């Protein structure tokens, strides 16, 4: 079966704890992060994640809602890109 991936990007003002907050939501859903890239550019936090959602493709909508809610609380913007296969 082909693996299914989403790319999540998060952008917002930098502060300690953002990666931890965001990745723990993903960990709670038991999805695996296979690639991660993050920089702080002029105090702006930029994070991109490649997440394998194959184990539970249907549950992805729940993750998306949860992350949108959490990122709203954290004051950062989140976008989702559904890649299908990698």
């Amino acid at each position, binding site marked *: 079966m082909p693996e299914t991936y989403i790319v999540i990007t998060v952008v917002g003002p930098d502060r300690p704890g953002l990666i931890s907050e965001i990745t723990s939501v993903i960990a709670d859903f038991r999805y695996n992060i296979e*690639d991660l890239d993050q*920089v702080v550019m002029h105090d702006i936090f930029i994070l991109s994640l490649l997440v394998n959602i194959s184990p539970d493709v249907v549950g992805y909508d729940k993750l998306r809602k949860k992350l949108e809610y959490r990122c709203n609380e954290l004051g950062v913007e989140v976008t989702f890109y559904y890649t299908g296969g990698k």
Partner: protein
Amino acid sequence: MGRDRPGIVAAITGVLARFHANILKTRASTVFTNLFVIIMLVDTAHATIPIGDLVNILKRSCDGIGMALAVEKSASYKCGKRIIVFDLDGTLIDQEVIEELAKAAGTHEEVKRITALAMDGKVEFLQALRQRVRLLEGLPVSKMDEIRDSIKILPSVKELIETLKEAGFVIGIVTGGFDFVANYVCKKIGADYVFSNSLVVKNGILTGEVEGEMVGPEAKLMAIKTMANDLGVGLESCVAVGDGANDLFMIERVGLGVGFKAKMVVREKAPAVMNTDDMKILLALVGCIDLKDDVVKRI
């Protein structure tokens, strides 16, 4: 770095967040098909606890999820590593050779007791070495040949050394153990340098003495300095890998010191720790992965 599974990033960054360490840059990816590597540049200027404490908490968290950890100053990380030295007994080979000798000499119990104390750092290494070698007095040289022939080099060591050589590393063995095994292993794996102790033999039997200057904790570091001088590089370009208390002196003073399936006293103080003998993890720890180049460019 370690076996990939969900939750690794959350666990590690959670520790940094708790103590207000700010992650400036991160690269994480899967390497060697099933290993997850995450490299972070962390600003600890506003951390709420001293760096040493933070590192210890990180070590415990990593250990809890089966991950190896290396902590390096960014300047040291950026400079390419050129030299790697390995302890012998317990690191490249599975045996403590002195105990094998003691078995043949019929003094195993006593020697084993002293070895354990020395490796845990409870007895000064050179003193413990002298005591143990004295207990080998009268052992015929033929027994040494038998023991050498029974030496088992850890699986994947040869492959590791080959990969390190391809990456341009100069390889050394620095051991408080003995030349008749160290030279053999050096030849087998193709190491470039070997520093070890020599047992005095008279009329085909051991006299219970060690020849000349002994290789203790400080001499291990001196050996690395010799290699670094030969190559014209500084200690920050050197990696030291070991498991016992006698390795700690070098581990704490080189660019990257790695506690390899180490005794507790080493685990607590080594800036890098790995508790598996998966040598691919060691390769990743010392930066033999493309991901490192990627990160260094951006630091």
